[in-house]
């Protein structure tokens, strides 16, 4: 490919006036500009992208499973009406549960599930959450806790076994990868997501 006169590039980049170009170079500039103008015309035909997108978002919003998940995750006032005799039985059951050895109260994991522990150091943060492929990148579902206020935030959750991409969301606005992760992948937004491998407990 033959390089074209550098003055053509400078004119197209707005660094020099095209009136300063000799006529033969000006014709080249005009040819490229007219090609670009043709390409700038709106593509014809096809379905409306807006309709498709909005229909998908609408389905996303109306999905019964998502509504159920959101209802379960949101706080709701619950009123229990109970006879005094049953309340005594309930209290006795709770005492019994509290006295059981700790290992019996551990969550029962499925065959293809494992335990993931997220630990991150964000001194001064007011909130830290983890979002990722396991919760559809939605905030408000897995908060980390810093009980002793030392800036180290933790969460332990049960996740399906396999590879999961994730990031931390600090103070509801900063999306930060977990720099202590062993693997990273670039996402569609030009950021690096951390990758976590969850091994099945009953492997």
């Amino acid at each position, binding site marked *: 490919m033959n390089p074209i006169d550098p003055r053509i590039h400078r004119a197209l980049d707005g660094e020099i006036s095209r009136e300063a170009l000799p006529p033969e170079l000006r014709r080249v500039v005009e040819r490229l500009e007219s090609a670009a103008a043709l390409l700038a015309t709106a*593509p014809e035909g096809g379905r409306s992208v807006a309709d498709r997108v909005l229909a998908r978002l609408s389905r996303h919003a109306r999905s019964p499973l998502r509504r159920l998940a959101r209802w379960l995750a949101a706080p709701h006032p619950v009123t229990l009406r109970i006879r005094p005799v049953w309340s005594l039985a309930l209290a006795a059951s709770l005492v019994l549960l509290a006295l059981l050895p700790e290992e019996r109260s551990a969550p029962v994991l499925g065959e293809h599930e494992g335990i993931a522990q997220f630990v991150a150091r964000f001194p001064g943060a007011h909130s830290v959450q983890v979002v990722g492929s396991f919760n559809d990148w939605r905030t408000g579902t897995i908060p980390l806790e810093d009980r002793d206020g030392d800036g180290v935030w933790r969460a332990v959750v049960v996740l399906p076994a396999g590879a999961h991409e994730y990031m931390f969301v600090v103070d509801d606005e900063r*999306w930060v990868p977990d720099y202590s992760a062993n693997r990273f992948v670039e996402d569609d*937004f030009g950021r690096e997501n951390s990758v976590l491998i969850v091994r099945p407990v009953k492997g």
Partner: protein
Amino acid sequence: MDVREGPSDAEVVARVLGGDREAFGLIVRRYESGLLRFATRVLGGRDAAADAVAESLVRAYRHLASCRDPTRLRTWLYRIVANRCKSHLARRATGDVSLDDAPPIADPADNEAALERGEQLAVVEQALATLSPEKREAFVLKHVEGMSYQEMAAVTGERIPTLKMRVHRAREALLKALEERS
């Protein structure tokens, strides 16, 4: 109604993140035509471009909270679409663009000017299709979407000197391809 009127991008993003799901429609309508034009020129076909843009906008909605600077929503959206287009091209064995689903150049019943314009567009599209995907993307962002090199850097993640060189090479390749077809 001109969708560029009305609330700013940052205001619309804040409304969507605040729970006003319908407000995302403003974003879609505001940028749909530009994103579709960009994807069509890069992928070489309207149907593939529509798929890429629709998928990108759904992803943009789901990840809207991660848009760090809503005042630069436009380049953020173009970046998502550019990456979708790259994935789409990578799935094609050769990376060559197909003009199979390009719109017909013009109906014979159309007037003469429209017919001539359609033929000219077909020639330019064929010439553009001979460029590598990187050069095609660079030329379209610069000369069709009218972006500055800074905006192109935000979209592609490349350095400005790299993009300038790519645009220069794209111009040269396009001129050569146009000359071969004239």
